[in-house]
């Protein structure tokens, strides 16, 4: 009996992935042909809550409202347009084959399964690749100004882990333009009354009545007031948990609270140890730094990554002769070169820096050099392609990348793990859905570039509007749950106690202090390279720091007006509990795959060594009442279409 089989037999929750029957390429069509429908005139009788207004949330809310459902949308931002999807730079994949270079839905599907190191659910990924085509059409119809060729047709570029050009882009601001497209479509519905918008409102708890999601409790960030909202279905499109590392490329307010509160109410949290460390970020410059900034992966189309061969090198980059440079990605991965996938490129950078070959004052980066591209294409072309990224780099690093190479280093960027969902994107709590980065389903153990925007929009535009109808149809004419129900009142009281509790500790240290310390532990032991010993250490240090947090936290101000220190305390509390689960999962997964690299499990040349016999499964954890005692459930992964193989980019 393999470990997967043993663990499966011990599951405490029944995990039904609900993958439709039929050949891989027909599954989604079969699903749509068989699903239950809600008559157009009956749709207005159903209310759906959407939490989060990024790509997944805004597109879902807009589409559901267009169909006729009543939608209540919530964001902790001042406007739906602020969601962190906006910061994605490089692009969005679409299997359009506009370049005639042999792309197809099957190839995008295959690249994504392989890119995820064979730890994603095949059927979900195939649907994602199918929808990628419609997303590009939909976004162009919304007026997204994608880059174009002189003839007026759409331009494409390449991203890591692919050998075709299938990435659509809008300068270095693709996420911004896509989010604004979805935000505009969403705003139209707000104007028409199809969506009711609640801004500066943060989800504090999920309410489950009779085993179904009944609604949410939110805190008005301006007044501190807690209110309950009920609906027939609840969608969490609340993003990832990369800020667990404190320093990350995520926006400052990104947090795990919504997903974590759902987890505590019964939703399983899947593959928490699958975190993506992005290879091209600006290295940390000093200890007061609050976040790290990404430099788009698209830069690797024309930039060459290298380090000096001499650890004691002191000359400026342009004076170092060619034979004293190591273009290590081109050397190690000749067929993908500088476009090797993120996890592989990140580890290679870490090894170079660990060997003392790092560049910059702190020797904590590697070069990303554009001098060849500038000589080959001219400065104008390089400026046209990456101008705004170069400017951003100069503002932050104070160096001009046209004249000297950028310095880059990996940083936490995206989380593949998240709430466990079935094929319909429903968690194991009926009526509770998770979309976009908040769920776990499509990227396996590593996400390829330009796939996050694709997944957010696929889930919101082209999956949830169908699957939610299938859930709601049998509930016709049932009222929304009463927000005076004892479960709502209990959740409100608990939330009130929680926030009063933070204010009452009266210790000496700010929530930011604890977040920074927690982040350091997770980065050191559950970052780019993990070991059994390190993870054991993290699992003793995090609970100790958490005890200190409970005793020595200081939150000033009050709970009745805008108080960002208090907001932060709640988010850090949840990051502590999640941090324990991340380390537990990383310790339990005795293999290396994608972004999860356990030093004990590697090939002779230092690549990730999977154990398909024992770990070809999703690890989904049930809340056990104590963050140190989660209950492990597994969903075995079966591959019908793609054959399990060693992932090679050589």
């Amino acid at each position, binding site marked *: 009996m393999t470990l997967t089989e043993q663990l499966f037999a011990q599951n405490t929750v029944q995990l039904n992935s609900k993958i439709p029957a039929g050949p891989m390429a027909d599954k989604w069509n079969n699903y749509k042909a068989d699903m239950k429908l809600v008559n157009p005139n009956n749709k207005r009788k159903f209310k759906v809550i959407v939490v989060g207004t990024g790509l997944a949330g805004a*597109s879902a809310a807009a589409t559901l409202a*267009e169909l006729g459902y009543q939608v209540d949308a919530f964001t902790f931002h*001042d*406007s*739906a*347009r*602020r969601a*962190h999807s*906006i*910061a994605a730079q490089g692009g969005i994949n679409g299997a*359009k084959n*506009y370049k005639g270079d042999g792309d197809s839905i099957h190839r995008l599907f295959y690249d994504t399964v392989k890119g995820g190191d064979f730890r994603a659910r095949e059927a979900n990924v195939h649907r994602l690749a199918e929808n990628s085509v*419609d997303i*590009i*059409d*939909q976004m*162009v*119809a*919304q*007026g997204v*100004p*994608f*880059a*174009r*060729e002189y*003839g*007026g*047709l*759409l331009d494409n570029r390449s991203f890591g882990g692919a050998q075709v050009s299938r990435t659509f882009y*809008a300068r270095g601001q693709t996420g*911004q333009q896509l989010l604004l497209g979805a*935000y*505009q*479509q969403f*705003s*139209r519905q*707000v*104007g028409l009354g199809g969506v009711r*918008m609640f801004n500066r409102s943060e989800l504090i708890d999920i309410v489950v009545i009779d085993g179904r999601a009944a609604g949410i409790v939110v805190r008005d960030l301006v007044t501190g007031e807690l209110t309950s909202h009920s609906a027939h279905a609840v969608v969490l499109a609340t993003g990832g948990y990369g800020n667990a590392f404190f320093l990350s490329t995520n*926006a*400052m307010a990104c947090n795990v609270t919504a997903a974590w509160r759902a987890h505590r109410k019964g939703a399983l949290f899947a593959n928490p140890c699958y975190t993506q460390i992005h290879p091209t970020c600006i290295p940390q410059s*000093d200890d*007061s*730094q*609050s*976040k790290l900034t990404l430099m788009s992966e698209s830069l690797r189309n024309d930039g060459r990554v290298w380090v000096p061969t001499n650890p004691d090198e002191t000359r400026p980059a342009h004076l170092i002769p060619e034979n004293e440079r190591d273009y290590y990605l081109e050397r190690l991965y000749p067929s993908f070169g500088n476009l090797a996938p993120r996890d592989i490129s990140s580890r290679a950078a870490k090894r170079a820096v660990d060997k003392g070959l790092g560049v910059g004052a702190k020797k904590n980066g590697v070069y990303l050099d554009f001098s060849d591209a500038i000589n080959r294409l001219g400065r104008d072309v390089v400026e046209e392609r990456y101008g705004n990224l170069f400017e*951003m780099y100069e*503002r*932050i690093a*104070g160096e001009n990348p046209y004249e000297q190479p950028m310095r880059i280093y990996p940083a936490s960027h995206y989380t593949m793990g998240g709430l466990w969902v079935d094929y319909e994107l429903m968690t194991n709590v009926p009526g509770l859905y998770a979309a976009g980065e908040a769920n776990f389903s499509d990227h396996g153990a590593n996400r390829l570039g330009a796939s996050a925007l694709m997944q957010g929009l696929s889930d919101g535009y082209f999956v949830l509007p169908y699957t939610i109808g299938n859930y709601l149809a049998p509930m016709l004419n049932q009222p929304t749950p009463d927000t005076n129900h004892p479960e709502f009142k209990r959740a409100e009281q608990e939330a009130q106690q929680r926030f009063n509790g933070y204010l009452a500790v009266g210790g000496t240290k*700010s929530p*930011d202090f604890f977040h920074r310390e927690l982040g350091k532990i997770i980065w050191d032991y559950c970052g780019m390279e993990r070991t059994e010993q390190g993870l054991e250490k993290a699992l003793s240090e995090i609970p100790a720091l958490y005890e200190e947090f409970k005793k020595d936290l*200081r*939150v*000033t*101000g009050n709970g009745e*007006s805008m*108080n*960002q*220190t208090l907001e932060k305390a709640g988010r850090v509390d949840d990051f502590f509990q999640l941090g324990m689960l991340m380390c537990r999962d990383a310790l339990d997964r005795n293999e290396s795959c994608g972004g999860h690299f356990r030093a004990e499990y590697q090939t002779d040349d230092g690549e990730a060594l999977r154990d398909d016999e024992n770990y070809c499964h999703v690890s989904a954890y049930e809340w056990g009442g104590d963050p140190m005692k989660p209950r492990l459930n597994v969903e075995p992964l079966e591959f019908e279409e793609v054959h399990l193989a060693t992932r090679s980019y050589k």
Partner: protein
Amino acid sequence: MSNTIKNITLKIWRQDGPAAKGHFETHKIDEITDEASFLEMLDILNDRLVTDGKEAVVFDHDCREGICGTCSLMIDGQAHGPQRGTATCQLHMRKFNDGDSITIEPWRASAFPIIKDLMVDRSAFDRIIESGGYITAETGGAPDANLIPIPKPIADAAMDSAECIGCGACVAACPNGAANLFTAAKVAHLNRLPQGQAERYSRVESMVETMDDYFGSCTNHGECEAACPKEISIDVIALMHKDYRKAKFSNRKDLARS
């Protein structure tokens, strides 16, 4: 190489709520690395305030990459501070000198009421977009993306104005508190594209009229363009006015016919 900047004096606007009376509060920063961003300096100050048992200064911020448009701040009377084409979150301390005294205020405009300290309510911008800042294309019916070729100069010009991050610096910098640059940037983005033609005139009409409900009038000072972190040109305002005139003209014709 990083250097240290010494002896900074901050004069920060504090205000408990929309109706409360505000005042300036003075804080000293003895030294800070010039690698720190302006907002990281405020983080450090806030951490110190909390540790000392005082309330942190409330300010809006999020991505810290200059793209989400959440951050604001009038720094020495300039929206987003002294560096051209740069949002506050991308401003670094290397732009300041030893001994500087820096005044930090919220956006000041009647359409942006103060929530607390340096945080304001910019939801009037959302109302403008809701009134017409979109192309009606409901999910599901879109034709192939390459069906309508768009000449590159037109796509590029649309992108130039689509870059607006909705931060509100244009309104804060305007002596009239007008939102013409914000509104016109969206009008120009959508009205330049083939997809935007069907609603071209109804869009501009309803966006301009919603804008007028909340904001002051434009008298061509040009401060908005100077303050815009995306350096959006005021040419877009001319385009908006031209389309608005046409819209009004054609509507009069419609009225005459009916």
